[in-house]
């Protein structure tokens, strides 16, 4: 017993003090678009062969062939980093932020035509402050388990989301927010809707990870695994495949109406 206490004292405090910091330089992160760099799509033109989920689109709308608009959907991106490595002009760059969650699906679509004006905050006043002090979260997994492991990691001593009042609960009856991971294939439709219906109102729905947002790599397959939005109204989208534990905590704090700073 004494040895155990001595060992634990020697280990010190593991919890990170800085909330939602940038990812380490070694991490791949997510892509970002630098609107100042022109796209040389005519020269490289291989984004279609590279992107595994076809998240990149190059458009020539304004008939100005030299200035195509590049759109990148973070809600479909699995963060493989191939576009960053292959973009010859540095238009697509690395984004190490852990604060990428959005309330609107459209806000996840990046464009080289400049940052779009963010659509109006659809957060209703009724839920805005209700969960400010605490948020009980129910997690339903429908995917490959990476996002589940990262939600589990968010509760570990390093990230310790319980210090922000976020708790994972064992029943939908006690839950304020439903966090769904995975692309929601046909086999999980019934169980997921029943879980949602068992939750008391007001309730929030959070799509955690690229699969839950858009179906990701599974989109369009026969198993109808096209993401959560086809079944339930989604309040918050967390991009990433899987999102970093800090990204998850950031999104949950967003759900509570608190900022990460």
């Amino acid at each position, binding site marked *: 017993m004494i*040895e*155990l206490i001595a*060992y*634990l004292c020697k*280990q010190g405090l*593991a919890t990170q003090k800085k909330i939602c910091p940038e990812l*380490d330089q*070694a*991490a*791949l992160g997510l892509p970002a678009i630098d609107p100042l760099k022109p796209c040389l799509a005519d020269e490289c033109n291989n984004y279609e*062969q590279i992107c*595994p*989920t076809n998240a990149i689109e190059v458009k020539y709308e304004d008939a100005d062939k030299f200035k195509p608009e590049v759109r990148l959907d973070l809600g479909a991106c*699995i*963060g*493989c*980093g*191939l576009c960053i*490595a292959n973009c010859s002009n540095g238009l697509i760059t690395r984004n190490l932020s852990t604060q990428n969650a959005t309330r609107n699906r459209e806000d996840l679509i990046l464009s080289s035509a400049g940052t779009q004006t963010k659509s109006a905050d659809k957060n209703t006043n009724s839920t805005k402050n209700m969960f400010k002090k605490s948020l009980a979260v129910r997690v*339903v*997994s*429908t*995917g*490959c*388990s*990476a996002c*589940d*492991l*990262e*939600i*589990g*990691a968010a509760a*570990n*001593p*390093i990230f310790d989301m319980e210090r922000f009042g976020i708790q*994972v609960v*064992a*029943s939908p009856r006690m839950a304020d927010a439903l966090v769904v991971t*995975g*692309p929601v*294939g*046909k*086999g*999980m*439709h*019934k*169980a*997921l809707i029943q*879980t949602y219906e068992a939750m008391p109102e007001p309730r929030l729905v959070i799509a955690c990870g690229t699969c839950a947002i858009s179906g*990701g*790599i*599974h989109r369009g*397959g*026969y*198993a*109808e*695994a096209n993401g959560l939005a086809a079944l339930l109204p989604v309040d918050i989208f967390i991009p990433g*495949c*899987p999102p*970093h534990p800090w990204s998850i905590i950031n999104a949950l704090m967003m759900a509570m109406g608190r900022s990460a700073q």
Partner: protein
Amino acid sequence: MIPVYKKLAINELANTIRADLEIEGNRVGLVTSIDGNQLITLMLNTRSGNTVLYQAELASDSYTSLTTTIPQLHWHERAIHDLFGLIPLGHPRLKPAIINESCETIFAPLRETAKPISDKLLATRDFEYLHISGEPIFELPVGPVHAGIIEPGHFMLSCLGEDVLNLEVRLGYLHRGIEKRITEIPWRKARFVAEAAASDTACANALAHALAIESLLAVEPSFRSQGLRTLALEIERLAMHIGDIAGMAYDLGYLVIAANFSRLRGTALRLAELLSGSRFLRGYICPGGVVHDPDRLLSEIQRTTKNLRENLKPALDFFISNPAVYERLRNTGKLSSSLASEFGMVGVVARACNIAYDCRQSFAQGSYPKNHPTIALQQEGDALARTLVRIAEINSSLDLIDTILSDLPSGTIGSNLPVDLPANAIGIGIVEAFRGELIHLVITDKAGSIKRYAIKDPSFNNWTGLAIAMRNNVIADFPICNKSFALSYSGHDL
């Protein structure tokens, strides 16, 4: 690896497999079909590393069940039924396995499109539990959505008082159509889908995929990339084994140690991030080699490993030397060695039953031929044995990481691959994932595109083991038993 290909008649298949299994070292790797018109069986020899693929053509939608004489094929035949609509006549418990029965509209997705699915076939989709009758029996349904943060699966426990008489495992909720998707997209993008089969096993899946594709293309990756791949695979094993022990400590109520292990798992994930940029090693291994060289970060990986080893050792000692842990795990969820080999258990579960099967030795690739670890064996087959095997493998993985880092060959990390895959070819990749034997099988058609891609996750074999091991245990031990097997739902459901 390219298997020896043999054609035979369907009525010879059962006898051939049985005769093969008599020979020491032989085991069934995978039984499936290509498009519903044939059965293919992959036999592995764990001594010589030889593989044979039998193909038997089918004349109709049904065949005599192989399960009646080779019990370990019962789950394979259920999966074939789900994916192709083929009926094994005489199968004792035919019901859905990998596609949940609620998904009627997606029944038999891999069947040749020209062959219609009759109503008679759809009528075979009922999931009927094995009912145990009697007045004092009660049934406890659990899932599919569980209390914690776990993947979905349904368990029906039939109990007499505290004792579980039977556990029925019902899966298929996570079916996402991985195998079909890989045949629909360009083969260069297929690796991302292959590793999404189960992302806790992302690295092993990517490696098995790369090995299968490389065997088709007859490409040998550079020595440096082989070393880096082995490094990645061992880091994944290390991180996941620590995570499983953390889960076990949590289920036993030893929370101080559980929290400590989950923190140390964070350090193992840091190793993965340093190596590949992803905490789950996603997208790192590709056919032909690896994606990037961590070069400058290798010394930091070395330092972090040293640090992890120093902190991990006392924590493991505290955990396993605690009498409460020892007593609770001993004799819990016992699986006998004979049943384990009869039902084809793999990985940690098999080694805990004294079955010396480790693909790092039997089908060595990468750095394994040079430095394969000794196989961690235990005799008892209980939850304690499985935990001890995991602990031994944590230590051997740490040793391996050190060995590979100190002796990493120099050179390039990738190779140029041909544009097209060869026509009418078969390739397989066999990898020891942290749960056990993982097989990827790829078959191309005459145009050189992928016609059939099959994945056999280690959990596919081991779910049966959990059901057997749970019998006659008290119901309160179910979480511990389940955790000691630590099986994947997504890898099974695909």
